[in-house]
């Protein structure tokens, strides 16, 4: 099959507008689809971020108080609640906390290496919990030790408290002490007194998933304190394997049996990690779906456009095709002609599209602080669109190859 590019180019020159329109359409589609796929990729990466939590078995109760209690009263109630929860047959462990991974926004502190440092070294999410928190969340301790029960302080409402011990995530340990010597070292978390690293867990997601959190991904710390906050406390509960549903049913009953002077929102006061994940990544998942739909519609419309225009060309050139066939061109030659023609237009389109894709991405980086488009995405977009073009042109091209040489003798 000898493909002659020159006659094709000559023929295309007679269809300048149509050729240009297909090329422009391919270029725009490539540029948009590349950026959309890139957004999808980023969002899917976010959706699959690891929390470090034993998500299959952990649930969270947002426990608020119905009365104005003192810190002492709250502390007694929290301890009693914990005992009651841990005694439930389906529950492995329970701990009070100021927040939990993937909560969707919460508490973070700047970290400095000296108390009078002006520019902070970095930022860390802050959790407060007792010696049961590590096991309750199911965190993996990779170095050092857990808190002892006598290290756990009592923290009242909005109390400024800086415990001398701290457990940090591996990401934070590595950020502060890249040489791996974090254990036993100290730092300052917006406090006059230092906290010494006694343990390292890996991983431990921050509460939030915002751009600020992404900038400090995985950097978290746990301080040993029971948060006896008048505004409410999160109770983290870890069920025994397979008993999550039962434990979620029994836990509020056990708490109300302890005291009725509490508010657990009947709608969303108790959530397992499937719900928590769903809530925090709501917009990321939605964006990925939306971009997916738009990309699919774009590709379908571009393909349909190519089919439509090529069909028109085939119809217009039936006589010429007939003449070529009569002069000895095989069906393969005709098929090859249209496939090559489309490939040439496609290559022109994707060349412009690649430039446009990077242009759009650069503009988005400057406007929305998105990430830089990776070359792999553009490359796969180029292949995708060229294949799409060839696929779309196939049906009209086959129809063209079936034009009989007799057509050459007909006047229309």
């Amino acid at each position, binding site marked *: 099959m000898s493909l002659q590019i020159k006659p094709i180019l000559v023929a295309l020159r007679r269809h300048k507008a149509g050729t240009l329109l297909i090329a422009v359409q391919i270029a725009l589609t490539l540029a948009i689809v590349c950026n959309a796929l890139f957004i999808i990729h980023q969002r899917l990466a976010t959706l699959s971020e690891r929390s470090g939590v034993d998500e299959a078995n952990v649930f969270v109760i947002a426990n608020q108080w119905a009365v104005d209690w003192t810190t002492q009263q709250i502390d007694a109630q929290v301890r009693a609640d914990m005992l009651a929860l841990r005694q439930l047959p389906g529950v492995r462990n329970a701990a009070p906390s100021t927040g939990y991974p993937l909560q969707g926004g919460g508490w973070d502190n*700047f970290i400095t290496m000296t108390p009078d440092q002006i520019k902070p070294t970095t930022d860390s999410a802050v959790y407060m919990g007792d010696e049961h928190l590590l096991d309750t969340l199911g965190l993996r301790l990779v170095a050092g030790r857990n808190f002892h029960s006598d290290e756990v302080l009592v923290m009242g409402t909005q109390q400024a408290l800086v415990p001398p011990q701290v457990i940090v995530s591996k990401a934070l340990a590595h950020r502060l002490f890249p040489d791996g010597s974090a254990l036993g070292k100290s730092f300052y978390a917006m406090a006059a007194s230092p906290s010494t690293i006694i343990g390292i867990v890996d991983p431990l997601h921050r509460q939030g998933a915002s751009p600020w959190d992404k900038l400090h991904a995985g950097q978290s710390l746990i301080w040993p304190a029971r948060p006896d906050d008048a505004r409410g406390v999160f109770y983290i509960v870890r069920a025994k394997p397979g008993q999550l549903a039962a434990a979620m049913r029994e836990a509020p009953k056990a708490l109300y049996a302890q005291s009725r002077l509490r508010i657990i929102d009947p709608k969303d006061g108790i959530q397992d990690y499937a719900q928590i994940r769903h809530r925090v990544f709501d917009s990321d998942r939605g964006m990925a779906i939306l971009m997916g739909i738009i990309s699919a519609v774009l590709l379908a419309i571009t393909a*349909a456009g190519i089919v*439509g225009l090529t069909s028109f060309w085939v119809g217009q050139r039936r006589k010429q095709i007939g003449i070529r066939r009569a002069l000895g061109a095989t069906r393969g030659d005709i098929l090859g002609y249209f496939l090559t023609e489309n490939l040439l237009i496609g290559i022109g389109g994707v060349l412009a599209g690649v430039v446009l894709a990077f242009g759009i991405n650069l503009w988005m980086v400057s406007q929305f602080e998105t990430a830089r488009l990776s070359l792999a995405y553009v490359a796969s977009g180029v292949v995708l669109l060229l294949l799409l073009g060839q696929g779309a042109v196939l049906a009209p091209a086959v129809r063209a190859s079936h034009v009989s040489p007799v057509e050459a003798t007909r006047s229309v």
Partner: protein
Amino acid sequence: MFAYYLELALRSLKRSPGLTVLMVLAIGFGVAASMTTYSVFRAVSGDPIPWKSAQLFVPQIDNWGPKNGTDDGEPPNAMDYLDATTLMRDHRAKRQSAMYQISPSVVPAQAGKHPLNVTGHAVYSEFFPMLDVPFLYGNGWSAQDDAQRAAVAVISSKLNEKLFGNVDSVGRTVNIEGRDYRVVGVLDHWNPQPRFYDVTNTGGFSENVEDVFLPFERAISVGLPNNGNTNCNATPKESGFVGLQHSECVWIAYMAELDDAAAVTAYRQYLDAYAKNQQKAGRFGWAPNNRLRNLPDYLEQQQVVPRDTKVSLLVALGLLLVCLVNTVGLLLAKFLRRSGEIGVRRALGAPRKAIYLQFLTEAGMVGAAGGVLGLLLTGVGVASVGLVLPKSISDLARLDLSLLAITLLVAVLATLLAGLYPTFRASRVQPAWQLKSN
């Protein structure tokens, strides 16, 4: 003549149903995607109080200086207790209010009912007239109530219904966080989006309707803690809610009403003088770094419109553009296929104008059909936008008459625009050449 063109167009469209359906689908999908994302964009970028937003200002005072962890030089987007209460005491604007988010428990009077947890704000009396808050019953409280730290409350119609049934409850008592408050006003479904008076705590959008408003100084005096964001550049030296009030942590939103440019200039000078005084007193180790933006500018600066919403709209507009390029190509093919017919018409004396009218009518018909399909798909899109967007935002997207009108208009105009070049080409067909070659 127009009826004749309509008939011609219809006949032509029927002759190649595949191509026609393809064009209608492209226009329909392109318009629907754009309009659906636009409905969301319109909802989140709307002015929540258009008749007054130019007179509402958000003062920001830099009480952190260079030790704020950011590089953009912007002061914090909320105030600490000292600055907020000083500004309230000085009372330099026509109306103003400091406010902070609260989340108290409310105990229903009826025995056996569970306590409820509600959210709301502690505000000053001028909050209600300043923001034109609508009341179903009663009114806000007075400046005297502010000063006397009166136990009064304004509640939402929703909470009113829950506690008292659907009656005028002004004068009745509601138990908030263990203390009795007299209801002075019941709001009439007030849930502005974006939640412009407290962007700090909502990021702009919130599904929760605010249920209770209490006098600011009353809430402070009974120690009703702040339930919103608290941002600190250093850990407070003292503990508890009182410790927070003595700290440089920012947790109070502030809004002032300034009627004209002179008032704005005067207020700006006042803020700078205040900051300069603080610098002299040694509290601020830096020159005054204040901001006084009106509401639209403030919402813009706080990036209340989610980036995803803007990106979605742009991508959808890109889709519409591709659909239009597609339509140009298909119309071109369709029109030029009829070169013979055009040649005959021209030879029989039809002027170019007639050709223009005939083919633009045809393009317009495709546009109208695409618009109708686009309307249906936009309806589906707006209804199902909740599947892909957070509830706080998707709830705001609405399909109303203006959106319907825009959808149809965009579809028809876009298609006419797309039809211009193909029609131009059709009108240039040489009658003699066409007649000869056939």
